[in-house]
């Protein structure tokens, strides 16, 4: 229809309604429909025109500092110099990115950026993947006319334990400093000095110690920031890569795993919109070092001389024999399987089939007694995006910054940018306390009371009634049973109809393992039950699938008695963990980056794992080991390849119907699974919390990001970052104990006593004592009684 015809005819009913958000512009003369409020740089990208940029990053507030994205734009008043990363599109705007003026400006800015930039590309780690190099080739003037002496600074200086800064290369784009402040909330780097001597720097004596520092290296558009684990290790063109999912924690950040000469060298965040937005925590980013450190490379079998290397056939025969012996001696329920949360869905599924169908034991569990009951998964579930889009986020779980760091970034962003309100219940101040709208610090066991009080507060009640509420629920204290937290979640959900739950389960694939079957059948025991049974001599064969109760189970004494009491132990592990050292057979398992498959994150999102390097030694994926043991026990699980297992999961597991290989191949962001209907909701819990003796302190034990676990302790770059074990008391309580901060004190519980250094810490509630779990040289697990509701300790001056 032409305009003339249109003018005469009234609009018909089926005429398309004009989109109120559409803005008509032209980019280099070509008409394009942009969105209202869209930045020119983004609109041009949609129209297929790339505008060069350095400071602009789509996940951060634009600052318009580098001036590389200057274009000419005419909104009716003639062509104007326009910073395309700052200016939104206007109706009928004519954007020229290649006009003589635009090209002159781009070439000018590039020449100026290069004026003081050292041309040490041949020895620069960024060379080959450098936005400055690339855009100099595409948009630059071709040669430099700068003949003066360049700026000089001391060549790279460490600004933290992980990151080096080469100020000569820095183009002061404000990406790292903006990330640290705006995204991570750790404003520890900033510009100092001014003019031509402006530089990025830390504050005096305060290193850039952020859990997220590696992201600054990834987003640096030049080689100014380099990370210790990758410096001088490879050239980008020598790297091979595959997309994968980080399994360090349950957030499931998308990552690209890079290797050279069959060695893992680097992990980079991939921008997955529903999950990590391209960010990673440093533990996830640099933890790949553990894959190549101190691995178990051959099967081990216990002989009179201890654990001796042997071949796979002999080791598998031994393992099968131990399981069969156990069944013969006391029936199938004398065999128990703990673990599976560290591997893939396929690993967990194969082990679940082996345990339930072949061995026929009900005692199977993927958790290590440090989470919440599996029934939490049956609660109405929220995704990470639902959480970020909620009106209110209720935190009734661990310190997200320490345990699920990238989820912390997403929640932080929701608070900062979307004004989501946080109502927090925590046994000590957490990484999100400063951002919380309301923060209730409770004494362990007091969370139910705290929740009831909050629900009765009219202001909080109004807020909870105002819109979607998501509860992030998890275990906030390893020194108390999960009962009070479960009851608090139940109380909350009863008081806030329609609230959904994001289960803050911690281990990489714990949700996947639980959902595909690594959970007890009716009558089966959970991990504490299994360990108790083992300690009581009722377990003939204990199978540990990547599980290390001595390090991870909060009650170390029970774990120790269980390993001593179990007649035989089979361990399937990547590293010779403390628990594996007690095993009769150790089967080496392939680690992250060495196997493909799928994984499920805490919201139930299934994504793919990539295999990039050859498995260490003769180690094999767990699913393959399970299949071989099943064959030894006389059953063919029917798995010939990992794809067979993936298909079997889609076919057989309730909630994974849509998680087919085709669906995963189609969606880079993964496919959401649902909890199987067979996971029953938790019955209402009623916990009777004992009264605390006023001489005692109620114990709070939580995890720090860096601990003595396998990933950190085997990553040379990270190992020394674990803070170590201290008992933190409120300053007034330190005074009450009668010691100076930093002195050694005796901490005793009903179980045991330990001597450790005391810290005065105002973030700790009076009457409570906080100790970090599983720190190098630490023994806090000895103090915890996993059968008790809470743990009270006495703290005495030596």
């Amino acid at each position: 229809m032409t305009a003339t015809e249109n003018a005469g005819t009234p609009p018909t009913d089926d005429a398309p309604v004009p989109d109120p958000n559409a803005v008509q512009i032209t980019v280099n003369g070509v008409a394009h429909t942009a969105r209202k409020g869209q930045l020119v740089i983004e609109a041009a990208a949609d129209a297929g025109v790339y505008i060069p940029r350095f400071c602009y990053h789509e996940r951060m507030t634009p600052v318009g500092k580098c001036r590389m994205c200057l274009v000419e734009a005419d909104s009716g008043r003639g062509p104007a110099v326009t910073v395309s990363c700052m200016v939104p599109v206007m109706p009928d705007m004519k954007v020229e990115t290649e006009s003589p003026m635009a090209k002159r400006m781009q070439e000018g800015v590039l020449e100026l950026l290069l004026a003081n930039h050292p041309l040490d590309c041949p020895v620069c780690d960024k060379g080959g993947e450098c936005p400055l190099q690339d855009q100099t080739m595409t948009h630059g003037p071709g040669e430099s006319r700068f003949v003066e002496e360049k700026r000089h600074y001391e060549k790279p200086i460490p600004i933290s334990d992980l990151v080096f800064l080469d100020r000569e290369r820095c183009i002061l784009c404000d990406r790292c400093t903006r990330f640290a402040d705006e995204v991570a909330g750790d404003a520890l780097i900033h510009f100092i000095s001014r003019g031509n001597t402006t530089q990025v720097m830390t504050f005096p004596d305060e290193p850039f110690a952020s859990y997220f520092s590696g992201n600054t290296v990834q987003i640096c558009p030049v080689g100014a920031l380099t990370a210790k684990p990758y410096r001088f290790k490879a050239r980008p063109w020598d790297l091979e890569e595959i997309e994968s999912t980080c399994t360090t924690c349950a957030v499931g950040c998308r990552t690209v795993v890079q290797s050279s000469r069959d060695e893992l060298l680097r992990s980079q965040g991939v921008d997955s919109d529903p999950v990590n937005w391209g960010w990673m925590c440093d533990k996830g980013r640099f933890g790949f070092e553990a894959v190549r450190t101190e691995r178990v490379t051959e099967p081990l079998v216990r002989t009179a001389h201890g654990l001796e290397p042997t071949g796979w056939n002999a080791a598998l025969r031994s393992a099968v024999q131990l399981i069969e012996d156990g069944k013969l001696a006391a029936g199938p329920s004398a065999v128990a399987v703990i673990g599976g949360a560290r591997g893939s869905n396929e690993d967990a599924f194969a082990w679940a089939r082996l345990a339930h169908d072949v061995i026929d034991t009900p005692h199977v569990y993927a958790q290590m007694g440090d989470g919440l009951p599996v029934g939490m998964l049956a609660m109405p579930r929220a995704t990470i995006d639902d959480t970020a889009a909620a009106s209110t986020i209720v935190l009734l779980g661990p310190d997200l910054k320490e345990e699920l760091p990238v989820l912390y970034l997403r929640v932080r962003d929701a608070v900062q940018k979307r004004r989501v309100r946080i109502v927090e219940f925590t046994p000590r101040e957490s990484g999100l306390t400063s951002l919380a709208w309301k923060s209730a610090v409770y004494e362990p066991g007091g969370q139910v009371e705290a929740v009831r009080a909050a629900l009765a507060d009219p202001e909080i009640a109004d807020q909870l009634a105002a819109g979607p509420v998501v509860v992030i629920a998890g275990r906030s204290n390893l020194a108390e049973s999960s009962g009070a937290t479960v009851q608090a979640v139940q109380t909350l959900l009863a008081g806030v109809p329609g609230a959904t739950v994001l289960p803050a389960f911690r281990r990489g694939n714990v949700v996947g393992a639980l959902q595909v079957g690594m959970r007890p059948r009716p009558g089966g025991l959970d991990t504490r039950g299994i360990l108790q049974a083992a300690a009581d001599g009722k377990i003939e064969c204990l199978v540990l699938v990547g599980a290390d109760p001595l390090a991870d189970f909060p009650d170390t004494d029970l774990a120790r008695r269980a390993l001593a009491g179990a007649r035989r132990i089979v361990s399937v592990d990547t590293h010779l963990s403390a628990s594996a050292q007690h095993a009769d057979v150790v089967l080496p398992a392939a680690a992250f980056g060495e196997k493909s498959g799928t994984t499920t994150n805490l919201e139930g999102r299934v994504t793919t794992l990539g295999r990039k390097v050859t498995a260490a030694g003769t180690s094999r994926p767990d699913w393959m080991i399970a299949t071989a043991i099943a064959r030894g026990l006389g059953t063919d699980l029917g798995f010939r390849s990992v794809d067979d297992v993936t298909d079997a999961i889609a076919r057989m597991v309730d909630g994974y119907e849509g998680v087919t290989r085709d669906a995963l191949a189609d969606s880079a962001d993964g496919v959401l699974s649902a909890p199987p209907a067979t996971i029953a909701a938790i019955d209402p819990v009623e916990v009777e919390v004992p009264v605390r003796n006023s001489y005692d302190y109620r114990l709070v034990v939580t995890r720090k990001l860096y601990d003595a676990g396998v990933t950190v302790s085997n990553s040379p770059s990270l190992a020394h970052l674990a803070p170590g074990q201290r008992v933190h008391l409120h300053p007034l309580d330190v005074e009450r104990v009668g010691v100076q901060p930093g002195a050694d004190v005796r901490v005793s519980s009903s179980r045991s006593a330990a001597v450790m250094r005391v810290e005065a810490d105002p973030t700790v509630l009076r009457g409570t004592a906080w100790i970090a779990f599983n720190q190098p040289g630490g023994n806090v697990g000895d103090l915890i009684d996993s059968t008790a509701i809470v743990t009270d300790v006495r703290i005495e001056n030596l």
Partner: protein
Amino acid sequence: MSSYPWAAGYIDDGDRPKIVTSRFHLEDGYTLERYQATGGYDGLRRALAKSPAEVHDEVRGATILGRGGAGFPAGTKWGLMPADKYPRYLVVNGDESEPGTYKDRLLMERDPHQLIEGCLIAAYAAGLAQVFLYIRGEMPLAHERVGQALNEAYAAGYVGTNILGTDFSVDIVLHWGAGAYVVGEETALIESLEGKRGEPRLKPPFFPAAIGLYGQPTIVNNVETLSNLPWLLVNGMEAYTAIGTQTSPGTRMVAVSGHVNRPGVYEIVNGTTTFRDLLYGDEFCQGIRNGNELKAFVPGGGSAPWFTPEQLDLPFEGRLVGAAGSMLGSGAIMVMDHTTDIPAAALTLTHFYAAESCGQCTPCREGGTWLERVLSRIVDGNGTPADLDQLLEIGESICPGAFPHASSSALGLEATPFPYKMTTICFVGPSAYAPVHSALTLFRSEFEAKITRRNSIPVTAVHATPETAGAH
């Protein structure tokens, strides 16, 4: 009487109308007692007797052009605030640091109550909740005098709650700068006030009136602009516009420095006084020193393109000066006689702007220093013929397209009018280029004369390498 020992630099000859310097001849003009005895706070009383809208209309009608540099009418600026967004703030830009400018310092030292009264009138007329007085760090006497005056004014009930028994209340907060030229840029000043690095904000929004201090509508006015308000309120719009011309009414303060017989600060009639009057008039600068020839002069602060004797008959009228290729800016006139080494003079100014760049945007941070280093090589005799066009090329990267300059009949040059395009966030970058451009356009032969070692390879620059400390 030609000058006063207590107001060093201020010169007051002849019978000219005085609006803002009427108390400069009084040694104790800065005290509340003297201020009140000479009609002080009458303007505030008159303002409070009217409605805020009436006061605003009066200011708008008087067309008080901003005296900070841009010359934007104050009344119009006040009207740019969104109608229903409160609180609104007034920020007084006392960070006077444009090279050659020292008029605001005298106003703050000699007549602080006049400034405070002006702030109060502005706050009343524009509905501003609080006033922030930002004084340059290098002006301790101004800080002391304004502080003292504020204490007196608070004690006398002129500032604070229920001013003069009305329900009008406003607080004035005094803030001392930390010594950065760029903080004279209004958005950088706001950042500094908020406790951040003094870096200009990105435009848009173009005016803090929309989003300013703490994200609220904010008026940023110059000290001299506000000092006009008490007189205006006492004498009325008609009396004010009767002085000067219709488009440039009232008086303005100018600071003349350089090769004149009598450099100093003068209050001149706006719009009608010409540069010739100012530089050669008996009541003003009384000609060039030693009877020398005038070579060039900067008409509006260090960042203004230069004029030559050909532009002497231009009046202090923004539009005319702009069309002639420069600007009135902050009212600082720097005079160069025929003995001036033009490349060295350009280097002095460019060095200032390069050193004062805040460093956030590339063209200013890198371009300013590059200009300075090439210039200093030329001045040192290490220039090459290619350097001259190179300077213009660097300038083109800061200010793409035509850059304003004056006409020259000797060179057969037409004037290029204001304004210019720029790739930078604020005017510091173009300011570094302005002296280079003017000097090269109008006096290129002087640069060529310095380039003696033809095609020589430049060795090193005098520029100090940045300190390498800070590592730890």
